[in-house]
């Protein structure tokens, strides 16, 4: 069990690194899709000892949404615009990796500073979640393309989701569904907006969207 969990966690970390190290947007989308699938599986691994219908349903929904639907949506958006690569990110790829390492260390520190009120199933889940969130934020901050930023947002959501799973919180499923729905809506609306942006501006470099300023 532990082996599996650790393997999944390591894979998740790798997908994060892949996200910030790759210039091809499609590769990034696939990395996020991969991450979504792994996250969907994670609750079944670290969750309660016995499988319940609810856990399975949630897991399936997550895999469907995060692993397939969102990537599909984004790929479609990617196809509609002529951009394939994140050419000149605000932070270069090598530097991004170094920062990623720093973020990982910070996430570890946070994990150590925050003692868990209940014995955790895996000590790595909390740092993983933190790291994923930070990577997501970093992607949003350091990339130019709107699509990459949406990816960053998705990764951030993933991190939060992972955090939620880490403790198998006794959240009523209604809320979980609500959260999923919201994430879905957010991505959906963002996708629509990206569509409008690419149509209106002939690009989707969000750093060039700076007409509104002081």
């Amino acid at each position, binding site marked *: 069990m532990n082996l599996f969990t650790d393997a999944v966690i390591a894979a998740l970390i790798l997908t994060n690194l892949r996200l910030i190290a790759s210039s091809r947007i499609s590769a990034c989308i696939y990395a996020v899709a991969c991450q979504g699938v792994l996250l969907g599986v994670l609750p079944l691994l670290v969750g309660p000892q016995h499988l319940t219908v609810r856990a399975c349903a949630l897991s399936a929904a997550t895999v469907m949404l995060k692993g397939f639907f969102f990537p599909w949506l984004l790929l479609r958006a990617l196809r509609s615009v002529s951009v394939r690569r994140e050419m000149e990110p605000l932070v270069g790829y090598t530097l991004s990796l170094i920062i990623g390492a720093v973020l990982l260390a910070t996430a570890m520190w946070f994990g150590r500073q925050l003692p868990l009120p209940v014995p955790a199933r895996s000590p790595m889940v909390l740092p993983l979640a933190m790291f994923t969130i930070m990577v997501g*934020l970093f992607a949003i*901050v*350091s990339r130019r393309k709107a699509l990459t930023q949406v990816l960053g947002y998705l990764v951030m959501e993933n991190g939060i989701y992972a955090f939620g799973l880490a403790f198998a919180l006794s959240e009523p499923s209604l809320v979980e569904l609500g959260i999923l729905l919201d994430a879905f809506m957010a991505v959906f609306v963002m996708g629509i907006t990206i569509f409008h942006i690419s149509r209106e501006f002939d690009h989707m470099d969000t750093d060039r969207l*700076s*007409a509104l300023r*002081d």
Partner: protein
Amino acid sequence: MLIVLSAIGLLVFSGLISFLCGRCSRAANLIGAGGAISGSLAGFFRAVQILCAGTAEHFHLVWDVPYGSLSFRIDALAALFLVPIFLVCALSGLYGLGYMKPWSGRKNLGAYWFFFNGLAASMAMVVIAANGVLFLICWEVMALCSFFLVTFEHEERSVQRAGWIYLAATHIGTAFIIVLFLMFGRVCGSLDFNAFLAARGHLGSAADILFVLAVIGFGAKAGFVPFHIWLPEAHPAAPSPVSAVMSGVMIKTGIYGIVRTLTFLGAPHIWWGWLLVAIGLVSGIPGVLMALAQHDLKRLLAYHSVENIGIIALGLGLGVLGIALKMPALAVLGFGGGLLHVVNHALFKGLLFMGAGSVQHGAGTREIDLLGGLVKRMPWTGATFLIGAVAICGLPPLNGFVSEFLIYMGGFHALGGQSSIAAGALLIIGLALIGGLAAACFTKAFGVVFLGEPRSSHGANSHEAGWSMRIAMSLLAAGCVGIGFFSPWVVSPVAHAVESVSGLSHVVVQGLLAPASSALLQIAVISALCALGVIVLSLLRGRMLSGRISSTEGTWDCGYLRPSEKMQYTASSFAQPLTAMFEPILRIKTHQPSFLIKEESGCDSHGSGPFFPGGAAFESHSEDFFLKSVYGPIFMAIQRLALRLRFLQAGRVQFYILYIALTLFVLLIWCLR
């Protein structure tokens, strides 16, 4: 109390009605002015009654506002301020009836009267309010009403600028007053003045802070240097009846605030008195100097308000010193002189601003150097302005002398005490200097505007003001003369107010004022004799000269040939010896383009040849030191800083999210450290 409250109600109500009449200018003008006059007069007579009786009246209602209550209190001190407020407002209303007529149709006179009556009502409310929140609301309503009146002619850039400076100054001043009351509330537990009074004497070291707050906050309204910068901007910009009210009575609410605060603070410290004396000197002397350097009539008068506020502050400072040093005579004379000067200044400054308004109304300009000879075309305005000018210079037998005389007496008393000698000496030198300079300034103002020959077509085409304006000015002039000649009877009502400020008993105050009263009585008698003497001598001269007067010639002028009106001395040249002496304070800027030689035109307007000089121009103006060198740089620095920080909102969403992330990081690290 109810009479005063209903008078205020009448003011507000008539203002509203006038506002609703709005575009129907005639009705708005009549209703507004009628309300202003009748409401103010009703209040005036009641206030005089209360002042003479020396009683106090209370009124209390619950009010659903946090910390607020509808508490009112009229004591002698409040009544002393109510008297000039209502009087000047009534007469300015009367004056405005004629003055505002030319605007009917072009501007919304309903709005004018709404704010004018609102200003009158709020000033009265400020003086009688006995609750901090109520006071603050009335105070700010007063400021806003006067702001809208100042910007009545807001089409002009200069008026806009003046309005902004005024609004900013008064608002920042109010901030200090808010803190003042809240600090009182912190100590006393309630914002009712009764609670403040109950806590008097138990304030401890807070009293010092409270006093400084009051001096800054109320001083900004009163026009203490260095908080005076709004006065010379706002008064010229406002319509003249408004300037009369603002300069005559509104700035006095600042004085009221300081005096009222003093009554809450209990036994004063010596340095408070010193501070007030110092403020009086730095307001009085630079005020009159700056006035001397002006050639805009209303700006000149505005700086004189600064000067007179300085004189009042000198009086109050002596009074505070007197209490602190246990010299009751000093206290009584200082407070008495200061408070009486409040009334006197209201009368003559109101009169002078109305005179300036008539000049502007009749001649179309306030620029002193363009005027001249108006006394022949505007005899009423000229005569009343002369009375105002003599009064403001503090010359006997008019009212300005009476209050200055009391303050001088206080100054001499201060010379008698060991620790107040310096104050006395400073005060006497200061007052004497102020008096001399004021005389210089008003001989200039009156002489250049009203005497001689017109210096431009403005002066030549002027006409006398309408009946309502003349009546208003005449009544104020009569007030100036009346207080001057009947001064002994004026002192005893003022004594009631002095009692409530100084905390001394009626008998003591009357006893201490007795020498002053008897002196004033003798002065009044001599003055009456002098007046008689002037009349007799004039008649006598008339007899002697009968049939031997030649008045067809021009001015002899030492035989100078063909003098023209352009060769007359101007206001600037008249004041030049004095302004040159005080150049470092006044910072006079001159613009003197070289003589223009019109070669290409061949022939200039006078028909002379091409080698003669054409037109020449010379212009000078005095910059306000504090506006240019203190406040201006501060405001510019804040603006520069703001512009430099604009990069924070540069439009890139990446940075925006970085801000969020960094905030989160910093907070997390701070929390988990």
